[in-house]
Each structure stands twice: as C-alpha cells, then as structure tokens.
C-alpha cells in the first residue's frame, strides 16, 4: 500500500524533497500557473461585491466536487452516481455535532471527513466489484438509502423537519464565517482538491487508477491490487466531497435532507467532468467553472427558459464535443486538426 502511494519520488530524501528536486521549468509551469490563479482569486476578493463573491464561492464548491468525482469516475473509470451521499453525510455530521453536542466546527470537520471515508469503504468493498451501469445504479441506491436513513432518524437529525446550526450569540460553538470567510474556505478547499488530484494523477497510484480504468483484468495481472486501488480512490473522492459537504452545511446554517442529498449534485459533478473532459486535472476545473458560471448567467438573464436552454446546451456539447471540451482543444492543438465534423463522426453509428 505504502509502496503504491510513494509514487515516482522513491528517493532517499522522501516524497516532497524528491519532487522538488525533479522540478524543471518545463514541468513546473502548471503548478506556478495554479499558484498565480490562487493568488489572483485571493486578491480579487477585495475588489468584488458580495453577490459576485457568493457566485464565485459556489464555483469553488463545484470545482472541489468535480475534482473529487473525477478521481473515481474519470481516472479509475467507476462512475459513481452516489457521491452526494458523502456530501450529505459530511453536512449532517457537522450539523448534528454542532447542534446537539456543541462541538466546534473545526473539531467536527475531521469527523465529517472520517464518516464520509468510512461509509465509502463500507459500501465500496462490496459495490466496487460491480462494473459499468450496475455500479452507477448501486451507488445511486446507496445515496437514496442514506438519505432515507437520515430522514427517518428523527431523534438525532431532526428528520424531514431539517436541522439548524447555531451560529450567533453564546450558543454558537463556532462564530459564523460570513461571506468573506466562506469565499476563503471554499477557495482553499478547491485549491486543495486540485492539488490532491494533480499529485495523485502523477503518482504511481495515479497510473494504477488509469490501468484499472483501461483494463482491470490486465491491471490485476501485472500485479496491481485492483481492490485496494479502487477503494482508496473511492475513499479519497469521498473525503473531498464530505469536506465540501461540511463547509456547505455551515454556510447554509439551516437545511433539509432533500437539500444535501439532492441527486442533482451528483449529476452536476458528472456533467462538469464529462463536459470539461474526464481523466485530466484541467478538464473538471474548466467544466466546473464554465458550467456553473453559465448556469448562473442563464438563471439571471433568461428567467423561466434557463433550464430549457441549459439542457439544450448540454445536448449540443455532448454531440459536438463528446470527448470533453478541454480534451478536444488539447488534441486539436497537438494534431493541428480542428474539424468539429470529425468530432461528431467519432461516436456515430
């Protein structure tokens, strides 16, 4: 296990020293660009009004969720339709601990992540044996089931009546962050998820995930413990999603099981990854930013028609860029071949 995670930096200096030594201008520019974007986002916060801050906060949330889904769905090839279960469990862990037991948010956060990971391992061990649609539906069922359990444990979770986190006065275990605080929190969360995805993708473990995706039997035959790879990938993904759910819960203050177990969260994660381009770090990032900005723009400007247009855009993107927009642009740039018609022909019957 440790051997898989150690990655390519198997030098005597250990993980990070080896990495830093291996950096050259050619391979370190994505990291520098990422740092620049992060710094720019920090600076931008001082310039924008609260409404825009709120919009960008939701963009950061979806960047983290899309990166998390990409680890299990994009790299490992197991399209989970139940990721929202970890979101909801993270949210409810924080809310229950803060509301019922007056635990501070910072103490509840790691527990929320732990609950998400434990649930992921518990359902992952049996369900990750299923492939294709069957895995998707089993995880969808697991998420629906988790929601119903939370919904019916009324004495602990408040059931369908919802739950409220105390945020003001002496009653509050942790003071409310406010809009600027949550902007920062979700920005850091998005950055951490991008870094986790990028580091994983370039590690030995990342290659193992791709190998499982490409051909699981062959991956097993060359000595990859596919069960460990799949469960760990599922667990890492769940940890990010649960963490996002914990912050989301605190941000919302009051919410219902139907809010934080809403299957449309899962669907949006999948769509953002697919439209951006799965199996890369930039794809989900671009997909999340683009789609969230687009959907909010449509909501503001088109009123009742916004969902109709949103659906039509998804259909058109799937038909014209079936491999994802970022993947298309990258391949087109490399091969100097920009024909969109060939793109449409690719998967045609």
């Amino acid at each position, binding site marked *: 296990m440790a051997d898989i995670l150690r990655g390519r930096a198997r030098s005597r200096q250990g993980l990070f020293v080896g990495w830093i030594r291996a950096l050259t201008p050619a391979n370190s520019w994505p990291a520098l660009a990422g740092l620049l974007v992060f710094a720019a986002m920090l600076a931008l916060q001082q310039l924008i009004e609260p409404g825009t801050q709120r919009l960008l906060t939701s963009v950061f949330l979806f960047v983290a969720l899309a990166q998390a889904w990409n680890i299990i769905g994009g790299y490992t090839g197991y*399209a989970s339709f139940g990721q929202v279960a970890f979101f909801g469990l993270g949210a409810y862990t924080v809310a229950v601990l803060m509301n019922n037991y007056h635990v501070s948010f910072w103490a509840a956060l790691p527990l929320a992540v732990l609950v998400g990971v434990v649930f992921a391992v518990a359902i992952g061990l049996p369900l990750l044996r299923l492939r294709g649609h069957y895995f998707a539906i*089993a995880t969808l069922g697991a998420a629906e089931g988790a929601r119903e359990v939370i919904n019916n444990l009324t004495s602990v979770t408040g059931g369908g009546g919802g739950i409220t986190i105390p945020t003001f006065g002496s009653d509050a275990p942790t003071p409310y962050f406010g809009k600027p605080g949550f902007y920062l929190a979700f920005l850091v969360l998005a950055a951490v998820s991008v870094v986790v995805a990028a580091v994983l993708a370039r590690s030995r473990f990342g290659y193992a995930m791709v190998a499982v995706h490409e051909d699981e039997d062959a991956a097993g035959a060359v000595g990859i413990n596919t069960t460990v790879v799949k469960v760990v990938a599922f667990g890492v993904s769940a940890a990010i999603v649960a963490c996002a759910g914990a912050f989301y819960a605190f941000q919302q203050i009051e919410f219902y099981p139907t809010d934080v177990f809403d299957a449309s969260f899962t669907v949006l994660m*999948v769509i953002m990854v697919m439209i951006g381009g799965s199996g890369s770090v930039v794809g989900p990032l671009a997909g999340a930013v683009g789609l969230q900005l687009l959907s909010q723009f449509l909501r503001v400007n088109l009123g009742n028609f916004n969902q109709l247009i949103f659906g039509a855009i998804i259909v058109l993107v799937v038909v014209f860029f079936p491999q994802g927009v970022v993947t298309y642009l990258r391949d087109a740039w490399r091969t100097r071949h920009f024909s969109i018609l060939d793109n449409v022909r690719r998967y045609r*019957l």
Partner: protein
Amino acid sequence: MSQFLQAAAYGVVQGGLLGLVAVGFSLVWGVMNVVNFSHGALAVTGAYVAWVLNVRFGLDPFLAIPVVAIALFAFGYVVQRGLINLVINAPIFLTLLLTFGLNLVILNGLQLLFKADDRTIDTSYASQSFAIGAVNVPYGRLAACFLALGITVALALLMSRTRLGHAIGATGMDRGAARLMGIRARHIYAVTFGIAAALAGVAGTMIATVGSFNPTTTPGQLTLDAFVISVLGGLGNMYGALVGGLVLGIAESLGGLLLTGTWVNAIAMAVLIVTLIIRPSGLIGKALYSGRVEV
C-alpha cells in the same frame, strides 16, 4: 388480515402499472446499452397528450392510447435517429448525459406549456371500485394493470415471433454481425427507442388516469422506479420488468403498512443493492447481453 390483503391487492395493481413504466426502459437498456434518463419525461409527455385530448375533445384516456402511442413512437424514433445515434459508440456515460440534457429540455418545455400544476384525467369509472370479500379493487387500476400485462405479453411475442423482434434482438447481441446480415442498425435502434417511448407514453396515460402527475416531480420518480425495476427484473427479458414491477409494488405497499415514515424507501434501496451484489442479472434475467460485441 383484511388490511394486509387490501395492501397486497393494491400492490399488485400498482406493480403492474410500474412494470409498464419500466418495460421500455429495460428494452432500451438491454438492446442499446443506453440508460435513458428521459424515460420518465417521455411518460409524462404521453400523459399530457392524453390529457389535452381529454380536455379539448373529451376523448376517453383508454381510447386515446393509440394516438399517444403513435405520437410518442414518432417522437422517440426521431430523437434516436437524429440525436442518440450520434453518440451511441461513446463511453456509456455520455449517452446518459445526453438523455439527461434531453430530460431537462422536455420537462421545462412541458412546464412552460402547461404550468407546473398537478393534473389528472377525470373519468367516471377510474375512482369506482368493486369488492372481493373485504378487498376493494378500483376499476381504473385493475384495467391499467391488465393493459400492462397485455402489452408486455404482446411485446414479448413481438420480440420472439416477428422478423422485427429478431432484428432488434440480433442488433442487441452483436451489432456488427447484425449489420453484416443486412439489418439496418440505425433504423432498428430508432424503432427500439420509438417502441420504448410509446410504451412510456401509454404508461404515463394510465398513471394520469388513476392518479395525478406534474412535470416537476413525477418524471424523476418514474425514471428512478424504472431503474430499480429493470435491475430487479433483469435486462433482456420482457417479463423481467413485469416481475420487478410487481415485486416493487407489493413491497412498497406492504412496507407502507408495516413501517413508519419513509423507512420503506430505505428498505427498497437496500433490496436493490443486495440484488445487485448477489444476482446482477436480476431475478429472472439471463446474461443474454453479457457477451455483447460492440463494432
């Protein structure tokens, strides 16, 4: 005891109806490997067609069924031929994404046309019932259940006895070989999706007659039910959806009697997951499509 029998009877008639919702979904999934997210939306579209015919022309919903079926078949044929066929060779989740987008377009289109209100098709007989002992059986639901049975049997006969059915089955098993035998796969896929859409429309009409529907919550619930039933019953067998529907219908109505709150939904999901783990080919499904070759 009578309460128990009543719940069982209700479960059976409800299950037949749910089976009719799922049979088209299962067909498309089995033959084309497409999980159709817009299936519930197609059912509700059929319900609206029948509702408009009923409100404008006073047409009885059972008489409206042929019109609904033809309209939805045409719609389904065009959607498959012009849209889904374009990405049919893509990784499975792309088709899912496409039907999700389609689902949004249909639902919001319906909502703009008809508002988000709950609708129902009123008939003089749907709410009346007759009694066997202490058990009340509503006419509308019974008729819908028999219709579901009849259509499922007809579909099974179509698949096993006609050239069209054989062509659909062959294309589902090995598209490359089927095309070498002169089967036009594009057309066959479009016909398959058309049949599924027509069946969904008929099911939607029945749901509108025995209960109520709206464009916001009904489609998602129907698609999820179709999911569960298809997995329970297994793909590649026309009677699978019917069996799955009956199991789900009876389990839900008996569960509703015995359990408080919405625990019954949690139980249904647990049953689904356990079925998937123990017997992924479904209760009566066989691994007909497991040796599928995609060319």
